């Protein structure tokens, strides 16, 4: 029962996050903006279209979107979204969580190189470079949470809740700030990547998917929404106290996720994309912040 509710939450609510971000950006810019449910309409539209494939591509090209959709769903099973325990929890599941996303990244970047075009190669090169710098930040944060919670399972680590905030508030703040930056980097949000433009200067993720069309493109869109939802729920779970009944927990989580979406929208409206040489510096800052958090909890 729990599993089903959680899956439904993830599957249905993810495109809403995209809508909230876009609406926030529009409102800040003085426009009315797209409908909140625009992403759903886009997905349905794309599912109806036909696919055109490049002559250069092989089966790897389609493996990318397929796995990009499946991985966030599987990863969400490891996160305690509704209730104090995730549907799947065991010692060391946090490593599986992070490496599932690495699997998705591997296949999407390989799929991008499959087209043999200059743009996709560029996007793939940037993607793997920035991910290499963002991974240690995630792990440092996990180290800090492992220390605070004394457990090696995501369910316990993320639900440090009220008690955790009492004991190690400074460390938790650092972890949340660092993970927020990683969230922006991994999900191709400003200031790392501009999801709206299609210019070579500003693209990382957008450019990797230039050649996808029809349902495959829809899957990519959906997959990125799912990934954004899962990452936001990581941060949201840390902000929330340990829940009571699953339903209230899920509703609270959704509310905080949407709040995070608004914050993302505000950040995107306030900043331009960073120069490429500054991005490694920002990611290293995030790594250092999380590292500092780990050091703080060791004392």
């Amino acid at each position, binding site marked *: 029962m729990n599993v089903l509710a959680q899956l439904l939450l993830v599957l249905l609510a993810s495109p809403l996050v995209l809508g909230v971000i876009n609406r926030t950006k529009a409102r800040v810019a003085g426009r009315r903006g797209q409908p909140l449910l625009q992403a759903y309409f886009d997905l349905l539209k794309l599912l109806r279209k036909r*696919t*055109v*494939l*490049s*002559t*250069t591509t*092989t*089966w*790897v090209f*389609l493996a990318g*979107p*397929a*796995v990009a959709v*499946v*991985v966030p769903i*599987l990863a969400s099973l490891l996160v305690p979204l509704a209730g104090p325990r995730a549907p799947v929890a065991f*010692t*060391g*599941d946090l490593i*599986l969580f*992070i*490496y*599932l996303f*690495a*699997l998705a990244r*591997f296949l999407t*970047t*390989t799929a991008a*190189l*499959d087209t*043999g*075009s*200059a743009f*996709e*190669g*560029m996007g*793939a*090169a940037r993607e*793997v*470079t920035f*991910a*290499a*710098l963002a*991974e*240690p930040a995630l*792990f*440092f944060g996990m*180290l800090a949470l*492992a*220390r605070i919670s004394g457990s*090696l399972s995501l369910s316990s680590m993320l639900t440090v809740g009220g008690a955790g905030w009492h004991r190690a508030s400074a460390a938790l703040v650092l972890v949340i700030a660092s993970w927020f930056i990683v969230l922006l980097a991994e999900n191709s949000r400003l200031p790392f990547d501009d999801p709206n433009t*299609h210019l070579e200067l500003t693209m990382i993720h957008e450019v990797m998917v*230039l*050649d996808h069309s029809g*349902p*495959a493109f829809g899957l990519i869109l959906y997959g990125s929404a799912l990934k954004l939802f899962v990452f936001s729920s990581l941060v949201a779970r840390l902000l929330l106290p340990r829940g009571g009944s699953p339903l209230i927990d899920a509703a609270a989580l959704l509310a905080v996720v949407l709040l995070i979406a608004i914050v993302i929208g505000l950040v995107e409206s306030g900043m331009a994309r960073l120069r490429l040489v500054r991005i*490694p510096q920002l990611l290293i800052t995030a790594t250092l912040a999380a*590292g500092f958090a*780990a050091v703080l909890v*060791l004392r």
Partner: protein
Amino acid sequence: MSATLVLAGIVLCAISGLPALAHRRAMLLAAPLIIAGAIAGLAGCALGLFAAPAIVNFPWPVPGGAFQVRLDALSAFFAAPVFLLAGAGGLYAERYWPATRGGAASVRMFFGIMTAALVLMIAAANTILFVVTWEIVAVTAFLLVATEHELPETRRAAWIYLVSSHVATLALFAVVVLMHAATGTWTFAPIPSSSARAVLWLALIAFGIKAGLMPFHIWLPGAHASAPSHVSAVMSGVVIKMGIYGLVRVLSLIDGAPSSFGVTLLLAGIASSIFGVAFALAQHDLKRLLAYHSIENIGIIVTGLGIGLVAQSHNMPSIALLGYAGALLHVWNHSLFKSLLFLSGGAAIHAVHTREMDRMGGLARRMPATAAAFLAGAAAITGLPPLNGFISEWLLYLAGFAAITRPAAAAPVLLLILVVPALALTGALALACFVKAFGTVFLGVPRSEVVAHAHEVPPSMRAAMAPLLFACVFIGLAPAAVAPLLGRALQIAAPRVAGAANLTDLLQPIQTAAVIVAGVCAIAVVLLLAATRGARRAVTWDCGYNEPTARMQYTSSSFARGLVAFFGWAMPAEVHGPRAFELFPGAAKFESHVPDTVLERALLPSLSRGERLLGYARAIQSGRVQLYLLYVVLTLLALLAWSAQ
């Protein structure tokens, strides 16, 4: 029984190459012989893992030596991949280096002898036998590396390999002699802690050079790149594991190694893994890239051993077990996926006759099976679930995380925690590197005309890759089944901590998760492929470019440029390109190359400086008889004066 089977395997492998010397037609016997040897050996190892240690003695007139073969679980554990790779390599060589190609007989002969000597070394119970077989492996490996000795770079690589290998042998002599002095026997007997220190540090040099641990790795990239591909597979897969076997065996004889040694292993392992993969990113030669990844993975294994030692000396047996288990499992995993990569990469190189990645491209359409094998190997080496690389890295991560949940923390324990971000960085860099490798070689459009004649390799070469691929997938999907084998080997490698945790229970959830992930991903991919079957094909859209050419694709160097620049302080690049541009620049050429920092920028310059300094002493040897006689006179006068006082 197990020892007999393993000995039969050794003999069959050793003689597999001999018929080739007799007659060219007889070369066909090589592959069946070595495959038979491999099967016999694997059966023997499987039995040996679960049975009591089996001992076989043969008479041997060498003083102090005894031809005593002892197959315990640790030896069986290390010998199993040797047999598997020998069989796969032998089958691969059948069509890869056919009888018509120059040097085919010597390749088969030395390959068989090398693998046989390797297993004998792993199973040797007497240290002199160990040293003798070690030398045999070193020399045959040198001869195999120098197979294409008409190329100057091969000669250079073989020479550096020979020199490094014999520096290691020198240190090994010292180790064996010290062991004899400490224990009084020429066998692997427990060493008392008082003499353990010297033995350990010398062993680190001897086995570190052999394993390719930084900064002793200087011979590895050249040797593994210049050797024939199936030889590179065996060298990367099992010959460097000789070094790990030696370290593990020596450590198992010492009860309580000093914590400083564990810390050294840990730091060396972390440095090797990070810099190994950073150097790999900078390579544009496919085999050199794979060779640097071997350095990275040896670093990961040594990190695991370091974790085990540090945790053991600080009384944390469960963490120590995780470290040792991860290291030992990674020994198997690396043998499997690295050899798979060398065999499939070698097939691609064989098809296009060049090792330069920037001249390949689009090979997946022409060699689909090879591409799939390489993709699987790449996913495995990056440590992605649901394949085997993930399992061993998972164990090491768990050790690092477990260390931080402990209340008290001494300084070395804090180092254990550093393992986590180090492994994370290594894994992410490895992902970048293999996306680059797979994408540049197999995907996209062909970058040069050498690809035009490429075609899929013969079935025997594909069949050689199959058991390796199967093993990678099996260990990834069923790690709990492998856990008992690990446990048996651990009982000998680290007897104090072997029972600290139940590996099978620990790995069970991962096993279930891996199966689910594999199943769901496979179904998703198949569904999507089926849904888009019959889709219209058009030129790559690429944001509306009308005329995409092959030259517009990213090359291997451009793909890795960002990360290579990030590590520029450790590996400065040699760039030859136009300096200044005029208003209407003409044709220009740009070339960049990243040499091995330790070899080209540290070792060789210091060696030539030393040679120049020592050259001043050459004046003593003038070649004139009179001067030599004068030396005699002066010595005589000095002695007379001394005795006259």
